[in-house]
């Protein structure tokens, strides 16, 4: 009986070694890795990225200021009228401001690559908000 037991344990060991080799099918398929700067997983239409302000539609009502959970939005003076200024370092990109704006002046774009070296450049005033840099 010892022969059968050792034979069976050898088979068990072999199966344990050979079974993970099923991964070799990844040798033939297209690699999963994207070459970052050239290829990258672009954000989809409707993704909640950086804001875009249309100054002519904005009436300066301040609903976005009150609905923002992080107090990221303030109204600032710009060319005679009050527009929202968004501190992207406080914003959580939840798009409640865009949803509750009565005039649909504030929308979310797909642009999400915002990395900066210093703190002050996280504050987006009305003119930066209205232009897609």
């Amino acid at each position, binding site marked *: 009986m010892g022969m059968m037991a050792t034979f069976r344990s050898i088979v*068990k*060991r072999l199966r*344990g*070694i050979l*079974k*993970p080799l*099923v*991964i070799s099918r*990844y040798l033939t398929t297209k690699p*999963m890795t994207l070459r970052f700067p050239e290829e990258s*997983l672009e*954000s*989809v239409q*409707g*993704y*909640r990225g950086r804001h875009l302000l249309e100054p002519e539609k904005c009436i300066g009502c301040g609903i976005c200021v009150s*609905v923002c*959970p992080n107090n990221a939005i303030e109204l600032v003076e710009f060319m005679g009228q009050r527009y929202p200024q968004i501190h992207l370092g406080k914003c*959580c*990109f*939840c*798009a*409640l401001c865009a*949803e509750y704006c009565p005039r649909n002046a504030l929308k*979310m774009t797909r642009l999400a690559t915002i990395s900066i070296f210093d703190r002050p450049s996280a504050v987006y005033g009305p003119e930066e908000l209205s232009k897609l840099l």
Partner: protein
Amino acid sequence: MKSNPEKEETFVPFHLPFGPQHPASGHFYGSVKVDGEEVVELEPYPGYLHRGLEKLMEYRTHIQNSVLVDRICVLEPFSNEMGYVNVVEKIAGIEAPERAQSIRTIMAELGRILSHITWIAIVSLALGLDSGARIALGDREGILRLNEVATGGRIYPCYFIPGGVRRDLPEGFEEKTLEELDYLKSQLNLYDSLIFRNETFVTRMSGVGIFNAKEAIALGATGPNLRGCGVESDVRKDEPYAAYPRVNFRVMTMKEGDAYSRVLCRRGEIAESISILRQLLQDTPKGKFRIKMTTRTPKGNAYFCCEAARGELCFHMVSDGTDKPYRVKVRGPSFSHTLSEFPYLARGAQIADIPAIYWSLDPCPPDMDR
């Protein structure tokens, strides 16, 4: 304890930190008292991710809270939203429309599969099976892409809101999801051969961290950890909510109650979630996906439980008539996994089994600390 008597008076427990910066501990510090190779006592020190969310929720309105609340468990935001949104609707006495209920169930099941796949990646990283982990990390992108298409957010969807969901599913979402589910179904066989039936994984996981049904219930275990000991308890079956009454599925239970049976429970749940999603995607009812709800909720309190990937997630909310909740208590499933089951299971185990036991319970430290 098996420590021999003459060593008794000179025995000084050596404190081994299973610390916050440990590749397998994920911001939870357990001070392990060790006698040689055997663990004498494990003291949990949580709190590294405690933000005091229950206090913050008292300062925000229900709409702002529905955005804050899916930061509770980082790996599975949909079940937190499902819990919070339903408890607010319970107090307000309204019912989300039919279409919103089935959209919520679809996204909750997608979140469950995503959470289980992330858990597969982390548990195989903790046990050193890197190839399976890399493939599982790569497979998450499919479901995250579906999240992004449907809700606009990758990790935090901020999608459920008291009264329904914030926007409708785009067209073609059903076909994309069905395609993704077929791919995941085939990947399950790959995970089987790479991880679940892997020789080292099985020997390291089976016979480790054993507790029977009675002990598990006394410790407050829920979800796959309790189903691993043979108790058939699943909130989706016991107290059906959202669109779960219309769906039939099997509750996976194992008998041994050791780490490997919990692993198989979760693996079975992925297959069940795929079949649930296939049933839901056949006939999503048409109609409104959101009804208007007044921001103020009447005075009263409500308690709602839903089944998160890790276990029973309960919300207890007290409202005093204003638009802000007076008090919200969140019972995260990982609270009892990490603080009462893990120290119990770690007693008497070997040091090398600590990561295996810890990740067989699938804890989520931000869910424990809130």
